[in-house]
Every structure is written in structure tokens, then in C-alpha cells.
């Protein structure tokens, strides 16, 4: 599964993506362009899994709610008798304030949204049920996985409406999501991971304990990776608005050391926890992200 024709890569270029009008169009363009470059189709059939209870999320069909459980616990629980789909995938998109940063044509949030949309589109083509959860310090948006007609459209609308929010704090939302996700689902985390690494890794391990496969797309802007600034400036934090007056030339080495340490730490710790870690430069095409997804998807079969 290789991208073979460079001419088709233009559809994966963030600068090209940024010029496309709607998220759906973006996602379709990316996925079709990407898939046309693959040597063989990733579409495969697979067996049915077991039933389970889980927390109700908007988008679930009302008929699937177990009213008896509701009568006893006063909670909406969805009763799953059989699998409607090959796979349930949960797209966890970070919408914290730091995701609003972008030095190029797309912010990290926009890039992440396009990535999530592309994955959702790709999943739909594979008859996988894709759900969407956005979070910062709590869950902001929840769209349960489904294969209903129009579900992709609802998911894309939800993605389109995202705005950068508050501080990143993966603890509460990850804990809540881990309880609600289907066992052995696929969790796709799209985030800049600007949180306490220990908490992030702990959250990922929690997903893993639930039997989920986890893919982490670590989004970082090109400027965050290279720190190209050279003039004295006040760097304003995008989450708490604090400012740091400094000369970039004096801080570049320590910054790059810090960001490299963060990346290396995530790669090492998440790898050890069985989490697929993929660093994405938002200035580069999305193909590596889609390939990472397909690789993980294929491994599940």
C-alpha cells in the first residue's frame, strides 16, 4: 500500500485542502486521491462481534435504548444485540485552544478536522462505523458510531462546527469515554498532546485495557517543530493567554530540545503500551495518517 503517483498527492497537500470549500469535499478529495494511489484495496470482510451495553450518545437509535435498565438506574443505556458493522471507530479530536495554532494554511484543528473527516469517509467506504468525540478539558461533541445513511453528513457537520476551546486536559474526557466505548473498538486520537504526558499515556492505556486499538495522531505545526522565529516577540499562550517576552534565538535550542523530548517520550511510552503513534506535521500531506489507519485496520483482521 504505497502512494505511487506523485501527481495525485496534490489532493493531500494541506495548502490544496485549505482551498476546498467544504469539509466533505475535502475529505472525499483526500480519500479518493489517496485510495487511487494504493496498489490494492483495503476493503475486506470480517466476522460479527459480541453484544454489549454502553452509554447512550446522541445519534443512537432510540429503539436501541434498554428501557428496563433506564427504569432501574435512570440512565440511558444502549443495548447492542449484534454488530451492525465490521468495526466501531471512535475519532477523538482535540479541540483545545492550542489546536487553534497554525503557521501555514491550516490550523492544527482544521488539519485535524480534515484528517478526522477523511478517516470517517474512508471508514464509511469500508463499512466501518465511525463516531466522533471532540474534547478539551471535557467532552464537547459526541457523535456515536453508526452506519445509518446521513451519519457521515452529521459527523462532518459536527466537525465543521468545531472551534478551539479551553485548556487541554485529557483526564476527565478520556476516563468518561473509556467507559462508554465499545470493547475492541478502534480509538483514533487526533491531538497536539499538549498536556501532562503522564496523564495522556495513562488515558491511552485505559483505552488499551478496554481492548481497543489506539492510534494517536500527534499533530504539530511546522513552526512548532522547527521554531523558525528570529525577532524578539511576545509569545502568547493560546490556552491561558499568558505572555512570554523573549528573543527566539536564545530559546531555540532549549525549545527544540523540549519538543523533541516530548515527541520521543510519547513515541517510546505509547509504543510500549501498544499504541500506534504517528507524528504529523500539519504542513505535510495527510497520506501518512491514512496509511497509518489502514495499517492498524489491517492488523485487526
Amino acid at each position, binding site marked *: 500500500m504505497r502512494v505511487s503517483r506523485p501527481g495525485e498527492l496534490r489532493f493531500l497537500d494541506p495548502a490544496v485542502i485549505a482551498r476546498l470549500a467544504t469539509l466533505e469535499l475535502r475529505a472525499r478529495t483526500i480519500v479518493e486521491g489517496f485510495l487511487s494511489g494504493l496498489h490494492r484495496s483495503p476493503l475486506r470482510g470480517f466476522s460479527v462481534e459480541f453484544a454489549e451495553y454502553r452509554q447512550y450518545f446522541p445519534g443512537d437509535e432510540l429503539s436501541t435504548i434498554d428501557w428496563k435498565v433506564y427504569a432501574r438506574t435512570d440512565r440511558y443505556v444502549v443495548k447492542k444485540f449484534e454488530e451492525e458493522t465490521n468495526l466501531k471507530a471512535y475519532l477523538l479530536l482535540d479541540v483545545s*485552544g*492550542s*489546536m*487553534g*495554532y497554525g503557521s501555514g494554511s491550516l490550523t*492544527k484543528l482544521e488539519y485535524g478536522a480534515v484528517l478526522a473527516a477523511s478517516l470517517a469517509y474512508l471508514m464509511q467506504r469500508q463499512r466501518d462505523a465511525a463516531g466522533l468525540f471532540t474534547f478539551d478539558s471535557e467532552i464537547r461533541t459526541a457523535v456515536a458510531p453508526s452506519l445509518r445513511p446521513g451519519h457521515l453528513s452529521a459527523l462532518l457537520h459536527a466537525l465543521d462546527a468545531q472551534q478551539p476551546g479551553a485548556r487541554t486536559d485529557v483526564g476527565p474526557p478520556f476516563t468518561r469515554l473509556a467507559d462508554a466505548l465499545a470493547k475492541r473498538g478502534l480509538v483514533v486520537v487526533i491531538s*497536539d498532546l*499538549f498536556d501532562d504526558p503522564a496523564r495522556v499515556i495513562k488515558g491511552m492505556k485505559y483505552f488499551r485495557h478496554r481492548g481497543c486499538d489506539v492510534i494517536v495522531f500527534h499533530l*504539530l*505545526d511546522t513552526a*512548532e517543530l522547527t521554531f523558525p*522565529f528570529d*525577532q*524578539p*516577540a*511576545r*509569545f*502568547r*499562550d*493560546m*490556552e491561558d493567554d*499568558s*505572555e*512570554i*517576552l*523573549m*528573543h527566539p534565538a*536564545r*530559546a531555540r535550542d*532549549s*525549545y527544540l530540545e*523540549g*519538543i523533541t523530548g*516530548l515527541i520521543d517520550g510519547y513515541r517510546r511510552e505509547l509504543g510500549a503500551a501498544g499504541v500506534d503513534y504517528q507524528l504529523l506535521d500539519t504542513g505535510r500531506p495527510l497520506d501518512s495518517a491514512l496509511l497509518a489507519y489502514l495499517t492498524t485496520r489491517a492488523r485487526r483482521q
Partner: protein
Amino acid sequence: MNIGFLSPLFLLGLLTIAIPIVLHLFRRRIDPIVPFAATRFLRRAPVEQAQRRRLQDLLLLALRAAALALLAIGFARPYFASPVDASGAGLTIVMVDVSASMGDERRFAEALERAGDAIGSAPSGDEVAVMAFAARPEVVVEPTADRGAARAALERLRPSAAATRYRAALARAADLARTRPARLVMVTDLQESGWTEGPHVALRGDIVLEVVDVGPMPVNAGITAAVRDGNELAVRVEGTGPARELQVALAIDGQPAGQRPVKLPADGAAEVRFPLRAERGRARVALAAIDGVPADDERWVVLDPRPRPRAVVVTAPGAGRSEGLYVRRALEAAEEPRAWDVDVVTADRLRGEQPLAGASLVVLVGTAGMDRRGADAVAALVERGGGLLLTVGPSVNVDLVASAFGERFPRVRVGAAGAELGMTPVDIRHPIFRLFDLEGGAFNTARFTQTATIALAGPGSVLARFDNGAPALVEQRHGQGRLGVFASDLSNRWNDLVLQPAFVPFINEAAWWLAGNLTPPLELVAGEAALPDADRPGVVAWTPPAGESRNGSVAALPLAVNVDPRELDPDRIGADDFASRIERGEAEAQAARVAHARRQEAEQGWWRYGLGLMLIGLVVESLIGRRG
């Protein structure tokens, strides 16, 4: 110690300090704000960076404000008023006349006694200074509280052979007094001739002037002139007092050469002649008996033939014999010791300095055929101390000459022929004109039918004007020499001045004046020439400036030094009249304060340090700003 400023208005420039302060305050938001997500990795030393930046900003602000302050203060020309002036202590300046007329021993002793009295009468707490004055003032004791030292200095004073010059002495005293309360005690014989020369003098109104009159000159006889006249030496003796017979002795090179009696009438003069057999030597004529003023009892004469100075008359080639003829003949008409060697050179041959070698004077009558090299050679001669008389005639290219002298050369525009004009000197005391009897109208008979318009473009003076007020003759210094521009020709074309009786002496006096710095004087006045041993009668060696000489080599010329004959003039003025000749008033006081302040400021020169510090500060500011 007080701080003063010569130009305090420049201190308003201190207001500009507000500019960097305001910029600093607004600059808080000048740094661009960059929204950034990964600030957590910038926080490793953010506090230190911010503090350092703040300190750096404050340092830059301080340096910029200091630079502006130093600039403003530097332009205001600060100085520290000296403690002496600040103390307000009074100063008594005792001025003792040591001119030749004070040479009588008894009278000089009386003068010293009066001066000692003045020291003793100085108010308690005042400082005392002692000045001896004749042709030049000399402060022998600077302001001091040590009156014993002042008295001791008085005892060392001796009468000189120099003439009296009150103006220079009073100007020096005013300078010495500066802004302090001062009392001037001038011990003098009130000789009127002492007012003849010297700078303008003014005293502060609050300076007390006491004139102590030591009385009239005693009966005196002196030799006022000794001139070689062919094979004779003519000696003029003048005197005061009753008629009497005196003996005059002649010595040549120290050897007695005769003694002759002279009958001096009462308060009159007489002449005695000595035959001269020697062609060379240094002659001294002296009265046999020393009398009231010893310095004038002798006179020196150098018998050596003087080398004649060389004058070059430049004419246009082919202009005919008349061009330059009148000037040449006039210069050749002068007799010894003021005779000239005159050469006529056509302008086309003047293509370098060689034709002007050894010349003291150039008279440009025509310039046709002359190129820039010739003009540069003339300018170089004047630069070295020679003289130039430029006549603006029909064959003179003034622009060519002016281009060699530069922008300060007078602007000359030749006009058309017009009404006949006469010429009148502006100041009959000028050396060129002081010989003429203006009552007879020496120049009034000359008629000028065509003239040029001259406008001075630099420092210079108008010496004569035409009837219509336009300058006829201007002079200007250029380097060590002088140049004169005559606004018509001297070839009998545009005027008939050359046919007038005044022409020959006029051209000779102008030539000697313009070429004066390369032409040796006939003799020196004791005490006025800056030469060794020129403060007393005798013979000294004189060399032209910059080694200029006839043959290009340095040649020392023996010159006689004698007492100024005016010093023998017994006429006196009263003490009140003396005081009335000095300008007094608050303006002088203010001028004295300003002059004192300027002197202090110039001596201290703090502005240089201020500007130096400012430059250093700006360099440091630049380095810090660049690193920041």
C-alpha cells in the same frame, strides 16, 4: 563652585529626553505578539528573559536619555565658575608705568613708592596683583593675598625702552579683574602719546580706577632720528628745558668715530651731521651726558646697504610700453632705504613661480596670455607673505586671478565708462595714505572715467572710495600676505591718476604696505617687535617669514632697534581726562562677565567630555540594541 552655561537656551534641549521616555512607555506593545501553542517549552527561562529584557530596555532608555541630555548640555557650553570669582573677594591691581619716559631714576623710585602705598592701602581681605606696562603689559604678580610678594616684585621692576601704551595695559587689567570687584591703581606720568595706539578699551562701571600721577617728565634731551644721507649721518636732537649745548658722539662698530656739539634751543630741536667714511657697520650716536630719559640718549643706525625688495610688474604682451610703465617708474623713483628692484614680466611668461622668485610684490597691470599656473604662482606668493596689487584695467582677467585665490576673493565687475569720478581715502590714518596732505586734496584732482564695481566676499576693508561711494581700493589678507584691488587701471587709460603728483608716493606706500610681511622694516621700535633683544636700543637680526629671501635662502638682515620718538613727547593729560577716555558702564561689565565666562568655559572645555561621553553612550546603546 557654581555651574554656569554660556548658551543656556540650549538647555531647552533637555526636554527632548521625554522622547525616548515616551517611546519606551509605548514600546511595551511594540514587540510583536505571536500566539503560540507550545509556550510550555519556552518557559524554561522566560522569567529570566523578561527581566533581562526589562533591564536592557531600562539601560537603553537611560543611555538614550543621557545622550540627549549630554548633547543639550554640551551645546549649552557648561563651565564651573572658579572659586576666586565665586568668593567675591576684591582685587587691587597696581599698574606701574615702566615706559622709557619713566626712565628718570628718582622719578621711577617715587613711582615704585606710590605703587607700594597702593598695595598697602588695599582693603583688608582683598588680593593684590602687580602689572608693569609699557608697549606691552606684563603681570608680574598674579592675584595673591601675599602682599610681601607684591612689594618684592615692585623692587625688581626697572624702566624699559618701550613706549607707553595705555589701552593694552587697561585691557589686560580688565581681563585680570574678570568679574571680581576691582580697584585699578595706575602709577604713570600721564603721557598723552600713550593713548595713540592700542585696542579699544572699556572697563566695567564698578571698577575703581585711581590714577597716580608721578609728575611731568624732567628736563630731557634725546635723539629722535639718525639717518644716513649720502656720505653723512644726519642726527636730530630734541629736548625740553632751556637752551643748551650738548655733545653728540658717534661710534661705528664700537669704535669712536667723532663727537660734535649741538646747540639745542629751548624746548626745540637741532640737527648735527657726521661725515661717514665707512660703507658698512653699525653706528651708534649718543648724547655725552645722560639726562632725564636715558633710553632716548642713544640711537642706532645700520650702515650696511639694504637689499632692495623685488617688485614684479606683470603686463599684457604687446600692450605697448605705456602699460606698466607708470607703475614701474613710480616704484623705481623711490630712494634708499625704500627703493625697489623692479622687473616687468609679460603675462604670457608667467607660467610658474620661477618668474616671481625672490619677489615681495606683484603688480598685475595686464593678464592677457596668463594661464592658471601664473595665477596660482601669484596666489602662492601672497600666501607666503608677499603682496599683490591688482589693477582692474582693460587687459586684466579678474576671474582668472580670483579663481586662484578662492571664494574669499573680492567680487569684481567691470562697468561701462560713465561720468568722471574722483577718489577719496576712507581713513587717512591708514599706512598707505597717512603721508598725504589731504587738505590739499592729493587725489581729488584725478579723474576716473571708467571703474569697476568691487564687493568684498570675505574679511577685508575698503581703503578708498570714488565720489559715488563705490570702493576704489580694497585690501584683504590672504595667508601671510595682503592683496589690494584697485577698481581702475594704472596705465592712463581709464583715469589720469598716474599723472597726478600723489601717484608716486601712493604707489610706493601701497607697495610697502602690501608687501610688508616680506619686506624688512627700516628699523624696529624697542619693545614692540617679537625678536630677541628687541626690547632695548641696539641691532638685532631680522629674517623674513618662512625663510623667504631674495635668492631663496634664509638671509638675516641687521635692523636697528630704537626708542619710539613719540616717547620723548612731554605733553601730558590730566587724570580726569585720562579717566574720561575709558568707556565705562554696565555693558562693559556684562561684556567682562561674558568674556570671563567664555574664558573659563574654553579653559575647562567640559562640552568635549560631554560629547565624548555621548558618543560612547551611543556606541554602547548600539551594541546593546543589536544584541537585544
